[in-house]
């Protein structure tokens, strides 16, 4: 039994790190613009599908991954320039609907480019499972875990240590004030979309060997990433990771110990309870409303 529980925990953490990685991208755009970008899952899908297509065209994997990330960043910039920027001044909800429209649009593009089939990326370092005590884990899961830790560290350092990062944060806290102290808000927004598209693409490429990818793969990943980011306290990169791992653990333990059919309900019930007691997530800022 103990061995089983250990495997559930390992499963939970590996699945959770996947959600966390997607959740990071949400945190980034939110930090710059107060907007939850519902096309974030599509960045993940675009990264994976572009990498798969380029690999199929004969490019070596590292090069394909790099090119796919750059392609996604370009898409992120275009999205900001041609969809978000023209709607400046619109309410947050309107902007959210724009990102939903963008998500559907990107899915449509992917459908035309790559068809409806599922595709897989080969694992980076083999398929042979690694034993951890009584549990087993795939080498690719360790990749996901490792890169998540690395990226979280980088994102954190970016916001806390660099001037650029602080400027980005300032835009979210008070756009007018940020403008007044000489921050170019428009450039900052583009930066945020570019970065989070890149983050999404990296996530997509890393998890494609485990979960496979298709034009619709972004929907589910986006949903789980969004949940991770919110539960952790939106805008906090560490929170996104904590939220992701929590969600993963809940699903694995729910499936293993209670009922696999109801595991999603169990996980979200827990999420609801968390929010009832911590209305701004686990690591969210408590903000007072201005009148």
């Amino acid at each position, binding site marked *: 039994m103990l061995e089983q529980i250990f495997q559930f925990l390992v499963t939970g953490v590996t699945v959770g790190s996947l959600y966390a990685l997607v959740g990071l991208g949400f945190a980034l755009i*939110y930090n710059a613009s107060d907007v*939850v970008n519902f096309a974030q899952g599509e960045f993940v899908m675009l990264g994976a599908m572009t990498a798969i297509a380029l690999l199929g065209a004969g490019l070596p994997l590292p090069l394909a991954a790099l090119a796919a990330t750059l392609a996604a960043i370009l898409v992120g910039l275009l999205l900001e320039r041609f*969809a978000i920027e*023209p*709607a400046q*001044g*619109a*309410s*947050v*909800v*309107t902007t*959210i*609907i*724009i990102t*939903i*429209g*963008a*998500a*559907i*649009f*990107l*899915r*449509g*593009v992917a*459908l*035309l480019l790559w068809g409806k089939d599922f595709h897989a990326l080969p694992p980076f370092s083999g398929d042979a499972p690694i034993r951890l005590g009584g549990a087993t884990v795939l080498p690719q899961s360790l990749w996901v875990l490792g890169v998540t830790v690395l990226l979280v560290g980088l994102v954190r350092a970016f916001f806390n240590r660099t001037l650029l990062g602080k400027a980005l944060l300032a835009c979210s806290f008070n756009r007018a004030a940020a403008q007044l102290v000489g921050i170019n808000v428009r450039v900052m927004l583009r930066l945020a979309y570019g970065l989070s598209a890149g983050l999404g693409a990296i996530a997509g490429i890393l998890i494609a060997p485990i979960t496979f990818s298709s034009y619709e793969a972004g929907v589910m990943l986006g*949903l789980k990433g*969004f*949940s991770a980011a*919110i*539960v952790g306290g*939106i805008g906090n990169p560490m929170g996104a990771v904590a939220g992701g791992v929590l969600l993963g653990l809940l699903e694995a333990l729910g499936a293993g110990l209670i009922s696999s*059919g*109801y595991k*999603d*309900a169990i996980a*979200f*019930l827990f*999420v*609801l309870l968390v*929010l*009832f007691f911590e*209305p*701004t*997530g686990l690591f*969210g800022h408590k903000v007072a*409303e201005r*009148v």
Partner: protein
Amino acid sequence: MRLAGFYVFAAVVALLPVLFPTNYFVTVVGASAGLHVILAVGLNLLMGYAGQISLGHAAFFGMGAYASAILTTRFGWYSLLALATGLLVAGTVAWLLARPILRLRGHYLAMATLGFGIIVHVVMVQATRWTGGPDGLAGVPPLNLLGWTVEGDLPWYGVIMAAMLLTVWLSLNLVDSQVGRALRAVHGSEFAAQMMGIDIGRAKTQVFVVSALFAAFAGSLFAHQQAFVSPDSFNLIVSVELVTMVVLGGMASTFGAACGAIALTLLNEWLVVFEDYEMLIHGALLMAVMIFMPQGLFVGLSQGARRLWAMVRPKS
């Protein structure tokens, strides 16, 4: 005079089937649009007036539908009694949920309602013994209105449109009532509203329950009209679509929400002939409308019409 728009709307709705009694786009798509209007108008009360987003509204829609379907199909209940039970269930759940869930703000509220929607959907899929599981429940008997059995497309158009006009009328009146003014104050600033002595919790709870009742009502009608229910009519995508309808049409306006519901229903029906290009066009149109008419279709189009009129108007 206040309800002038309503009477024009009602007249158009009544005239359409007289002019086109067998047209599929009137009787079938129209009925479908009517249900969407009920849902969107209800959700708009919550989103547009109380400023509370909900990404789980399809759950209430589903509760009404499944209550009617299960009670009439499995237990042979009278359809109106089943409908009332559906309203009771959805209303009670909304009432219980309102206090804790509406304390949340913005994206946290979105998350909580989304989670609620997913939980309800999982139950629909998994509780196979009651709900029929993912394949749903077939053979829901027709709606019986005090002896009149509603069957066929034209009678259904009539019933759904009557229900829709009733909800639109209710919504228009509600917005102008004291509750409505309190709600708008909540939307503006909760803190300020509280200072003015408005019981925010109560106002929000009331509107949450009302919008859940609207949704459950639409759900019951839907179950009888389709004679079939299955979980995928009540999933997250539907919830997102409902939010889209409200925002697309224009928040904080009953006719705006109705306009969005009709527009999106027609759009889906129209785009299907584009096959693989459907998604691409759908996404692009959605973005374009929101970018160029951030206030929504209703305001955007009426402003456009006014400008056009100003241009062609004979100068005096």
